[in-house]
C-alpha cells in the first residue's frame, strides 16, 4: 500500500510538472517570435532571407530543415566557419546569444514554421539540453 501511494504521488508529480513546463507548439512559436525580433532579425531579416553570401537564409534553408540538431547547436554554442546553405557557401560567425534551452526551443519552433517553412517536429527544452557541441565538428 505504501509503495502504491509513493508511485501514485510521484506519477502525479511528474504528470503535473510536465503539464506546467510543456508549452503547446503554438505557444512556443509565439514566444519564439519575440526572441526572433530581439536577437535574430537584424541579420536574418524579417523575411528570413538573410543576405546572400554573408548571412545564411532561414527561409527554405536546407541546412536548417535537414539538420535540426546542428542548428540547435549553432544557437547554443555559436557557429563559425564554412557551412553550405542552399548550394551557397557561408564563411561567417554567429556567436552564441546567451539564450537558455527553452528560449532556443521556442525560436527553433518559430523559424521551423515561418516563411513557408514547415516542420512536424516540436523542439523541446529537453531536446535542446541533449545537443552537444561535438555535433558541429
Amino acid at each position, binding site marked *: 500500500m505504501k509503495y502504491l501511494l509513493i508511485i501514485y504521488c510521484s506519477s502525479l508529480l511528474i504528470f503535473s510538472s510536465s503539464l506546467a513546463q510543456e508549452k503547446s507548439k503554438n505557444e512556443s512559436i509565439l514566444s519564439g517570435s519575440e526572441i526572433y525580433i*530581439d536577437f535574430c532579425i537584424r541579420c536574418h531579416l524579417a523575411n528570413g532571407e538573410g543576405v546572400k553570401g554573408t548571412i545564411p537564409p532561414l527561409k527554405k534553408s536546407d541546412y536548417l530543415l535537414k539538420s535540426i540538431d546542428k542548428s540547435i547547436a549553432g544557437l547554443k554554442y555559436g557557429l563559425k566557419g564554412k557551412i553550405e546553405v542552399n548550394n551557397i557557401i557561408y564563411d561567417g*560567425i554567429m556567436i552564441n546569444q*546567451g539564450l537558455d534551452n527553452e528560449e532556443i526551443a521556442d525560436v527553433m519552433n518559430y523559424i521551423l514554421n515561418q516563411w513557408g517553412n514547415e516542420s512536424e517536429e516540436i523542439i523541446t527544452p529537453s531536446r535542446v539540453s541533449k545537443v552537444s557541441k561535438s555535433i558541429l565538428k
Partner: protein
Amino acid sequence: MQKIISAFLFLFLSSIGCAQNNPPFIETPLKKDYTYEIIIDGIDVPWGMAFLSNNELLVTEISGVLYRVKNGKKTKVNGLPYIYRRGQGGLLDVALHPDFKKNNIIYLTLATNTEGDSKGGNTALYSGELEGNNLNNLKLIYKSVPNSKKGEHFGSRIVFDKKGHIYFGIGDRANREKNPQDIRRDGGKIYRFNLDGSIPKDNPFFNKKGAKKAVFSYGHRNPQGMTVHPITGEIWENEHGPKGGDEINIIKKGINYGWPEITYGINYSGTPITNKTEDPTMAQPFYYWIPSIAPSGMAFSTSNIYKKWKGSLFIGSLKFEYLERLMIENNRVVKREKILDKIGRVRNVVEGPDGFLYVGVEGKGIIKIIPKT
C-alpha cells in the same frame, strides 16, 4: 498624353527610389594602396582595443575575456567583474586612463547584474588597476537600471576629453518608448563623469529634480562608436538606426538627438516608426546612412602613414563587412569608400600610438592596415 503620364510616373517612382539611398554613395576604389596583416588571431568578437605601447595592447572579447597581448601573444587578465553575456551584451569597451602610465587605471564597459536579481542585465562602467595580468581595486562607477533580459542595445564606447572627463554611452535596451527621451531613466544616453568616477557638477541635468545626474546627452538608440576629433576636441559618435537611419553625431552637452521621435529609419518589418525626420528641439545627425551599414568603432587617421587618408574618418560596417572611409570637407561628408571589402564583420577601428590603423574583425581578430610603398 498617356506617354507623358507614364514618363512622369517613371520619374516620380525613380525619384522615390533614389531617396532611399543617402548620398554620397559608397565607392570601391579600383586600385588598393594598402595591404593588411592579421596581428592577433583567435578572438571571435574583438569588441574593444586599447594600446599600452607600440607592441602591447588590451583587447576585449564579448564573451567576457580581457586579453593582454604582447607581440601577438595573448594572456588572459584575471579579476574581471561578473559579465552578463546575452545578445549584444557582454564585455564591451576598454580604455586607458589619460594618466595610465602613472596610475595603471583602466576603464571597462560591460553588461552585468550587480543586484543579484534574475531580471537580466544592463550596462555598467568599471575602473580597475592593471598590474601585470591582474585587475585590482575594481570600482563600479555606474550601473544602469533596470535590468532587462532583452538582448539589444547595450552600447558602448568610452572616450575622454582634455578637461578630465570620461564619457560612455548606453543604448535604449530595446525599450524605445520609455528610455531614450526620459532623462530620469537610463538607456539611450551618453554619460559624463570625472576621471575619479564622481559626477561633474556642471553636467547638464545635475540640478534637475529626478534626472539621472550623469546624463550628458540623450535620445540615442545604440551608440557603438565614439572618438575625439583630433583638431576640435569634440566627441564624435556613431549609432545604429533601425532599418536605415544609422547616424554620426557630434555630442554636445544637454542635447536631445531625437530617437525615436525623429529618425531616418523604419522598423525592421518595414512599418514606419514616426513620420518626422526633424524637430526644432532635437539635433540633426552630422550624417545618416540609408541603407544602414550597422556601424561600430570610429577613428580619425591623424598620422602621415596613409597619405591620402590623413583627416579621414573610419567606421566599421558589421552588416556589409568592410571598413568605411569618410572624407569630410567643410563640415560635410563628401566621399565614402570601402576599405578591406568583404573582410568580415568589422567591430572596431582605432589609430594606434604608431599611427597605423588597427581593425577588429569578427571571426578573424585584429588586423593592421599597411600602406603599399
